C-alpha cells in the first residue's frame, strides 16, 4: 500500500486507542506517525545517498520514486487525512505510485540481466511468463473482496485500492519467479541488487498483506497493521543502509584450491575460454 493509502487506512480504520494490551503505550505514543516520519526520512536519506554515490543514474526509477515518496508521506503527516484535499491527492498520486512500482521491478530485472547479453531472449520469455503467472494468480486469489466497509469511499478509490492490492501481490510473485529463474543459472548478483531485491520483496509483501487484510475485513490482532507500517518504514531504512557504491561490485568467491590444483584450474579455464570464444563467434 502506498504511504498515502496507509495513512488513509491506519488512522481511520484502525484507531490506535483501541489496541488491545498496547493501549497504554499507544495512548502516549503514536506509532503510525512515528513510522511515517521514519519512512520519509529513510526515503530522503536513500535518495541523497544514491545521488551522492552516483547511483541515481543506475537506479533511475527507484530514485524518482524516492523523490516522489517524500512529499507524499509529508502530506499524510501534515494534512487532515479525512479531508477532501487529502483524498484528492491520494487518488491522483496512487496511479503514479503503482506505475513506479512496476517500473522499479522492471528496472531491477534489467540491472540483473544487463551483464548477460546471451540471456536477453530467454530473459524476455521468462519475464513474459512470470508476468502472466503473477497477474493471473493475483487476480484469482483476490476475488470476492468485501466492499461493505468501502462504501464511504468513492468508486475510484475502491478501484485503486483493489488494483494496488493485486499489483503488490503480483509484483511479489513476479520477483519470486524471477529469482527462481536466476537461481537456475550460475549468475553472481552484486550486493546492491540482492539488498534491493530482498527489501523490495518485503516492502511489497507488507503492503500487499496490509491491503488484503483490510479489503477482506480480516482482523488478526489490532497492532498487526501498525507492525506492517513498521516493516514498510524499516524497508526505507534498509535501503538507506544497504545500498552503497561498493555494493555495485560483484563479489566472486572461488573455491579454495589445494596443492597442484592451480595448474589444473588454469588448464580448465583455458579450455573453457576456447569453448566460449568459439561460442561467441558463432
Amino acid at each position, binding site marked *: 500500500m502506498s504511504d498515502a493509502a496507509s495513512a488513509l487506512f491506519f488512522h481511520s480504520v484502525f484507531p490506535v486507542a483501541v489496541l488491545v494490551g498496547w493501549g497504554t503505550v499507544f495512548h502516549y505514543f503514536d506509532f503510525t506517525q512515528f513510522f511515517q516520519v521514519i519512512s520519509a526520512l529513510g526515503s530522503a536519506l536513500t535518495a541523497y545517498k544514491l545521488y551522492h554515490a552516483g547511483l541515481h543514474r543506475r537506479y533511475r526509477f527507484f530514485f524518482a520514486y524516492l523523490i516522489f515518496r517524500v512529499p507524499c508521506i509529508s502530506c499524510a503527516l501534515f494534512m487532515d487525512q479525512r479531508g477532501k484535499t487529502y483524498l484528492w491527492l491520494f487518488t491522483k498520486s496512487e496511479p503514479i505510485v503503482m506505475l513506479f512500482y512496476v517500473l522499479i521491478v522492471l528496472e531491477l530485472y534489467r540491472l540483473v540481466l544487463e551483464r*548477460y*547479453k*546471451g*540471456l*536477453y*531472449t*530467454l530473459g524476455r*520469455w521468462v519475464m513474459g511468463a512470470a508476468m502472466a503467472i503473477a497477474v493471473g494468480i493475483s487476480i484469482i486469489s483476490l476475488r470476492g473482496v468485501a466492499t461493505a466497509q468501502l462504501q464511504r469511499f468513492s468508486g475510484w478509490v475502491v478501484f485503486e485500492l483493489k488494483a494496488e492490492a493485486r499489483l503488490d501481490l503480483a509484483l*511479489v510473485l513476479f*520477483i*519470486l519467479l524471477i*529469482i*527462481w529463474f*536466476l*537461481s*537456475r*543459472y*550460475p*549468475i*553472481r*548478483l552484486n550486493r546492491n541488487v*540482492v539488498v534491493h*531485491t*530482498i527489501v523490495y*520483496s518485503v516492502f511489497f*509483501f507488507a503492503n500487499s*498483506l496490509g491491503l*488484503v*487484510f483490510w479489503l*477482506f*475485513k*480480516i482482523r*488478526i490482532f489490532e497492532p498487526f497493521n501498525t507492525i506492517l507500517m513498521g516493516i514498510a518504514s524499516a524497508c526505507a531504512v534498509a535501503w538507506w543502509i544497504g545500498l552503497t557504491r561498493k555494493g555495485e561490485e560483484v563479489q*566472486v*568467491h*572461488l*573455491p579454495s584450491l589445494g596443492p597442484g590444483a592451480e595448474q589444473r584450474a588454469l*588448464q*580448465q*579455464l*583455458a*579450455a*573453457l575460454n*576456447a*569453448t*566460449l570464444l*568459439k*561460442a*561467441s563467434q*558463432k
Partner: protein
Amino acid sequence: MNYLIAISIVTSVALILALVVLIRKVAFNGSSLPVTAEWIDELSIERYRPMMRLLDGNDLQFLKSQPGFTHKMATNLRIQRCQIFRGYLRCLNADFQKVCAAIKILMLQSLQDRPDLAGVLIHNQVMFALGMQSVQIRLLLFRWGICGVDVSSLVKTFDLMRLELRSLVPADMPAGA
C-alpha cells in the same frame, strides 16, 4: 473468516520461506565450475546402452521359459533390475543437468544474444523432465509386472543436448585440458 486468516498466514510463511531460500541460492551460487572440458570430451551415451535393454522384458521371457524358474524369482529379478535401473537413471539425470549447466555457462558468457540455445535448452529440459516422470511411473508398474520401460526417448533427449554442447566445443581442444 478463520480459513481466510489461515490461508493468509500459510501463504505469507510460504512466500517468505521461498524468498529466503531463493535469495540464499542466488547470492551464493556460481562459486564453482560445474563441468570440465575433459568431462565434455568423454561424455557419451555408450554408458547408457545397458540401461536401455535392462528392462525390455526379453530376459524375463527367456527365463520364464526355463524349467524351475518360479514367480518369486521373477519378482526378485524385477526388483533387482529396478534398483540397477534407478542407479543408471540417477547418473543420466546428473549428466543431463551438467550438460545443461555447461550450456547455461556458454549463454551467460556469450557477448551476444543466444535465442537458439535458449530454445534448445528449454525444449529439451521440458522433454527430459516429462520423460523422467513417465519413466518413474512405468518403473513402478514394471516392478509389479504390469508393463515394460522404454527409456530410448529420454536417452535421445540427453544425446541431443550432448551433441549441442559438443558442437560448441572446439574439435582440436586438447583432451584432458
